């Protein structure tokens, strides 16, 4: 019962919301356009660091920092897409996974310590930079005041979830943004633009033969997905109010892939439901292992294995994902 409660708590919490946004972005790229982006965490990184560095180190206002984070994601998409989108799909996969790692190692570099905080991150004791999340939580404070409550130092209950005010604020922002982005994806994918995007996934040459400039469409899909990754990355660093290179590991991309596939690729609600299910499994299994005398010491690695097993079961019994279309799956050759 404790495990279920822990799972449900994680499933609706801020982290699940952040991953839902990230997965909506990856779903535009991978699910709809068929672009193999294996470096979604790179987009999170440039979004998070773009915001943190510009606000904490250069002292620009918060909203300009947000704009810089978004522009950094757009820039990364252009940088990745320009050389690789004219080539076969595999090249994008190689380039994305490589550049995400390169970016992580760059911000980790000791010689950049005054800029990115190096391995200490931002804010850190070695640099005298200011907190980049102050404005974000000040806005949250005003939002909470509307309901006669306060954010700082306050604790709340949402179902089984016990959460502090800061976490609740990111949870509210995250799920709201996830809903808005899902709505935009729905709007886009029922339009002629979405039709071309899906056609490119099915057969790019067919789309070109019908006069569609597939390079531009692919670039747009990559950029849109990247920007959503950037937004997820900003929330990811705003939640703790700190940023450090060692959280932007490739496994974040693979969690996001698992979420997209479990929820149902090329569906509007799939990434959101996928994130809820993924983090439910994660939270529940993690809690059960930690509370068992036998497995408590190996809970860390074991939870990954068991979540993987859970996802395998989803894929075996619902290969199209939770909300995916079975027929589409069968036709996938």
């Amino acid at each position, binding site marked *: 019962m404790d495990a279920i409660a822990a799972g449900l708590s994680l499933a609706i919490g801020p982290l699940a919301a952040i991953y839902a946004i990230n997965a909506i972005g990856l779903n535009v790229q991978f699910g709809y356009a068929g672009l193999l982006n294996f470096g979604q965490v790179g987009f999170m990184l440039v979004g998070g660091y773009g915001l943190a560095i510009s606000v904490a180190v250069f002292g620009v206002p918060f909203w300009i920092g947000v704009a810089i984070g978004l522009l950094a994601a757009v820039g990364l998409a252009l940088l990745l897409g320009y050389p690789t989108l004219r080539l076969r799909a595999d090249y994008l996969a190689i380039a994305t996974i490589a550049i995400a790692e390169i970016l992580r190692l760059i911000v980790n570099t000791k010689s950049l310590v005054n800029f990115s905080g190096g391995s200490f991150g931002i804010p850190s004791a070695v640099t005298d930079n200011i907190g980049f999340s102050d404005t974000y939580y000040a806005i949250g404070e005003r939002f909470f005041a509307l309901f006669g409550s306060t954010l700082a130092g306050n604790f709340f209950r949402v179902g089984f979830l016990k959460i502090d005010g800061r976490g609740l604020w990111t949870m509210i922002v995250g799920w709201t943004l996830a809903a808005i982005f899902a709505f935009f994806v729905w709007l886009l994918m029922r339009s*002629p633009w979405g039709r071309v995007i899906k056609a490119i996934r099915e057969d790019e040459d067919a789309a070109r*033969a019908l006069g569609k*400039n597939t390079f531009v469409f692919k670039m747009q899909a990559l950029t849109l997905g990247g920007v959503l990754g950037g937004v997820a990355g900003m929330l990811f660093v705003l939640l703790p109010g700190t940023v450090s290179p060692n959280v932007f590991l490739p496994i974040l991309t693979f969690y996001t892939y698992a979420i997209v596939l479990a929820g149902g690729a090329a569906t509007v609600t799939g990434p959101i439901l996928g994130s809820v299910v993924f983090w439910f499994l994660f939270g529940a299994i993690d809690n059960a292992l930690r509370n068992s005398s036998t497995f408590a010491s190996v809970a860390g690695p074991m939870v990954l294995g068991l979540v993987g097993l859970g996802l395998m079961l989803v894929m075996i019994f619902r290969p199209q994902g939770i909300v995916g279309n079975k027929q589409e799956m069968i*036709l996938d050759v």
Partner: protein
Amino acid sequence: MSDRSRALESVSAEPGVVKPDPVLIVDSVSKSFGALRAVDVDHMEIQRGTITALIGPNGAGKTTLFNLLTGFDRPDQGTWTFDGQSLKSLGAHRIARTGMVRTFQLTKALTRMTVMDNMRLGAGNQNGESMTRAMIPSIWAAREREVTDQATELLHRFQLHHMRDEYAGTLSGGQRKLLELARLLMSKPRIAMLDEPMAGVNPALTESLLEHVKNLPNEGMTVMFVEHDMDVVMDISDWIVVMGQGRIIAEGRPHDVAQNQEVIDAYLGAHHEDTSVYDQGPVEIDHDLALRVAAGKTA
């Protein structure tokens, strides 16, 4: 004999011959893959409003020539103009927009999209394909209705209307060929380049597919197609261009080509006195085809 074949009546049957009203003119287009000269066409003209077949043994360079002309591959050198416009440096999608639209040897039905969406994709001038405008349906809804009406009419004509809401992946091979042709017509091309439109289609559907292709010139379209089925070629072509070893080795009306010694040799890989053209290795032979060409069989 139709008007359009009458226009070609006085044209002499020799490679690279000048046509009275060419819509497509190809000059010195060549492409090599390593040491293999896949395409080496000195001069070729396609008469407007006719059906021209491009035939030749396997490996003659027919599909490669199609790829070059439609921008799916880059030639090493050469120029070609479509209705006076040079297509040399245009990308595949730009060439398609000029009105030269192709199909593929291996059918490219977009399997996880509905038949109707396949059709709608073919249409041009859809504002809603712009990412920003896509989010406001009122901008593109009117054009979408037009496109849907056009698609509905074509689907009726191609007897695919009952499948309109099914995934294209559920269609049979022959139906996919029909869909690909119908989708091509959605873009209202001026020249249709069909790469083996009848391949893998059962005889009953071949009849209906043939009728559709035969009708295209009546709608003001020029047709150029690659085909291996000689009955089809002899039946519907106004003009035949024969390729061998990347070159154009013969041209003419169906009866000219059927009697042409070079064509017969190319298909049979016969020991011709002048072996220089063929000494790059054995020609793969389609015996059935060769024998029918050799016998001068016309349908």
